[in-house]
């Protein structure tokens, strides 16, 4: 790709942002959407809610992408710099290329949303501006700051590569700090809408703006989004690499994209393991704000969508496991571990099956009256005690698929190799037994003890086992005999489709969970403060929500494919040609 100069790059970014903001403000000033007595205006054909739902979700997907990918890229650049690994620097640069294009699309979608909201929901937006208006102006300032730093970071890559790499990595850090600031600001808006504070409960008038910003949900939601963005950003990177792998014919390119896909996918899954814990924290804060909202979200109307979530999360684990099991083929000596795959498959499958077992099988009042609320056997599996256990078992099996892959082409040479391997096996067996025992014990203790103590111990055990295994492996395989180097690029296409499957499923999951988080407010724009009196003041059927989630997912990938296509096209510009 022919490079622009840094100054031109910055000017281009600032002009783009100014034009988009200018369009939004011009439309709002010209058409004065707030000057109305009406609380709502209708969007043609699909209605206001569905329109805003789709645009907001697409905007969020791209925002997650442009906030998550830089974290990943800068981490790669830093490690590449410290280890003098050119491949890591290349992967970081490729990702930086991805997110710079992503910014423009995010900003365009943000502009559509910015114009849509005051026109369709004038009264609600008027309220929001009265309460959190200054944060919006701060958001604009941070957007400009980020645009400048991103341009500086990307366009100075080659210039700073040799002598100023440290400073360049620091620029990358600043990109991430600006991104995190944007995330904190936007999370404060969502936090206020769901768990409001700082306003008079009856009149909705502002009492304390800082209290309206630092609501119950603010920090846990920000943290959850930050982690989810890394998962999402890295999985998009993996999908990009997979696509390049599939469409490439050059063995060298195939090897590079195979390695890139593997690295991105493993980072994605590593952060994916942290998400349930932070989600738990978010749930605790929602319960602390209002138990009824917590109950409604976790077990009321949305109960069946948690089953859907389990189906999707389990599928993500299966896609990754499948990818890792196939990957054993490219590791010389990997065939020694094929025998364990069946076992890991059974554990993952059992964990997934229990995870998606519904607690209450009755789907209507009439059915509950007729057959009872709970199934005599399955009803016992659909509770938190078994679901926590099943989730951890499935995730732990996935971790072991990865742990096996890492050592598949090595043989330990340390004198205590046999003892080390036995200790590792003992840790693994003890952890499985311990997690299952806590799961069983959770049935017979009061709910409070299970929620506050046993669940924490179970998750702690899960992370403890992973850390212990990695530490043992580090010493056990020090100076190990390498049977052969991994044959990067020697992978069937189906392995790459499973990586793309992870990304598609995760995108769909984000749409679903975004809807659930928003739906927790039920018939309120701002819970308990601004009532939704529009014709859409109800939660649609799960089927309808699924249709919208699919539409946004397909639209998202349509745009992403266009971005990838554009990037690949620019790579083919002959030397001396003009960059598009």
């Amino acid at each position, binding site marked *: 790709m022919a490079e622009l100069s840094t100054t031109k790059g910055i000017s281009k970014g600032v002009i783009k942002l100014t034009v988009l903001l200018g369009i939004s403000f011009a439309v709002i000033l010209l058409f004065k959407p707030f000057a109305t007595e009406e609380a709502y205006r209708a969007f043609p054909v699909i209605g206001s809610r569905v329109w805003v739902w789709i645009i907001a979700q697409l905007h969020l997907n791209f925002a997650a992408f442009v906030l998550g990918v830089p974290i990943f890229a800068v981490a790669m650049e830093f490690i590449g710099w410290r280890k003098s690994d050119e491949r890591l620097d290349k992967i970081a640069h490729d990702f930086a290329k991805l997110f710079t294009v992503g910014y423009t699309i995010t900003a365009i979608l943000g502009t559509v949303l910015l114009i849509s909201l005051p026109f369709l929901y004038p009264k609600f937006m008027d309220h929001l501006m009265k309460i959190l208006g200054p944060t919006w102006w701060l958001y604009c300032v941070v957007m400009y700051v980020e645009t400048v730093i991103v341009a500086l970071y990307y366009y100075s890559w080659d210039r700073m590569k040799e002598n100023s790499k440290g400073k360049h990595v620091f620029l990358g850090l600043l990109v991430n700090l600006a991104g995190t600031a944007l995330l904190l600001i936007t999370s404060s808006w969502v936090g206020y809408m769901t768990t409001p504070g700082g306003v008079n409960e009856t009149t909705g008038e502002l009492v304390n703006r800082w209290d309206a910003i630092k609501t119950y949900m603010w920090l846990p939601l920000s943290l959850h989004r930050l982690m989810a963005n890394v998962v999402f950003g890295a999985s998009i990177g993996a999908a990009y690499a997979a696509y390049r792998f599939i469409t490439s014919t050059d063995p060298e390119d195939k090897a590079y994209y195979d390695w890139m896909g593997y690295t991105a996918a493993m980072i994605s899954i590593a952060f994916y393991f942290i998400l349930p814990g932070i989600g738990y924290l978010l749930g605790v804060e929602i319960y602390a704000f209002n*138990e009824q909202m917590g109950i409604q979200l976790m077990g009321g109307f949305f109960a069946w969508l948690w089953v859907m979530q389990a189906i999707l999360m389990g599928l993500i684990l299966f896609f990754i496991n499948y990818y890792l099991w196939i990957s054993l083929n490219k590791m010389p000596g990997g065939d020694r571990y094929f025998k364990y795959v069946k076992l890991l498959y059974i554990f993952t499958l059992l964990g997934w099956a229990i995870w998606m077992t519904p607690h209450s099988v009755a789907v209507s009042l009439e059915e509950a009256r007729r057959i*009872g609320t709970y199934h005599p056997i399955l009803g016992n599996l659909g509770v938190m005690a078994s679901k926590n256990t099943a989730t951890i078992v499935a995730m732990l099996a996935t971790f072991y698929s990865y742990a096996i892959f890492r050592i598949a082409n090595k043989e330990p040479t340390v004198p205590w190799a046999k003892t080390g391997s036995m200790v590792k096996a003992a840790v693994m067996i003890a952890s499985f037994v311990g997690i299952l025992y806590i799961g069983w014990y959770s049935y017979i203790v009061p*709910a409070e003890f299970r929620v506050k103590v046993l669940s924490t111990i179970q998750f702690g055990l899960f992370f403890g086992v992973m850390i212990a295994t990695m530490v043992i492996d580090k010493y056990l395989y020090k100076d190990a005999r390498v049977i052969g180097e991994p044959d990067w690029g020697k992978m069937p296409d189906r392995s790459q*489709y499973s990586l793309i499957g992870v990304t598609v499923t995760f995108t769909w999951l984000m749409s679903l969970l975004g809807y659930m988080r928003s739906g927790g407010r039920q018939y309120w724009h701002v819970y308990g403060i601004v009532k939704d009196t529009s014709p859409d003041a109800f939660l649609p059927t799960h*089927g309808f929500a699924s249709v919208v989630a699919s539409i946004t*997912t397909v639209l998202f990938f349509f745009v992403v494919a266009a971005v990838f296509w554009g990037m690949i096209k620019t790579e083919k510009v002959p030397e001396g040609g003009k960059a598009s």
Partner: protein
Amino acid sequence: MKSGFSKLVLLIIGLSVFYTYVGLYFLPQSESLPPVVIEIKEGIDQDELLKIGEDILFGKGQCMVCHPNKPEPGMRSPAIAGIGAVMYERVQSMDITEEEYIFQALVDTKAYIPEGFSPIMPPSQKLLTEGELIAVAALLQSKGSDVTISFPESLPALRKSMGSTEKKPVVASAKISKGISQAELLKIGKDMYDDKGACIDCHPAEPDPDVEFPILTALLGEVEKHAEEKGKDTEEFLFEALVNPGAYVAEGMDDIMPATQESLSPEEIIAVSAYIQSKGGKVTISLDSLPTLTKELEKAGGQ
């Protein structure tokens, strides 16, 4: 390359279609509508009251989310089956009636927490009307004890329980202070009408086939008509109708409206009155009308 791209498109669309299929055909399909007030007529038959209670338990009240029908391991809250018998047993060693115990447990949910459970239940009166609370209480009593709770006979006992938990209005009257603009007063009046006063539940802004009471825009006309009949000033009569609603019940209507001062401060009643006035005539009510309202409040208090 083209084949790889086509497969990719197929994969994305295929997975999305599969997830949509699961959402459409494997999950229950119902909508969650905003809660509606369930009308409970005076002297309602016990069976009917219990049926309404059961509907609320499964529906509007969302009680079944935490309370399983039968005891089960690790349950979050006590089971519904036999709960009436359990409560009957408990009151034997207490100095309260069974009715009082059930109402108290519903409205002051932290009052009686059985061992091993956490105080996670929200106060039921935030979600349910008085009639609905009585229906739920009757249903709970029916699970192992003789049903003595009925509507409207049990209203005093329920109100006593609610009174003991009622907090002073959170809205600072200071917000409605001298010099407030008419627009601000009307805005507060609207908020009171829609939310805190919950007037909108029975007097909606738009005609509603399920609601038999006059809608918001018709209220002023009603007031003017009755004021003329009684030879009173409209403003004075509007205040009287709000603070002593039982005095003027329109023909064919039930006397169910609570006195406004039970939920609103005098300044807030002024705001609501001005708001009602704004829906059909010139707004004459302001904070200067406070002495007239005070007089009506004193009269209502003396009855």
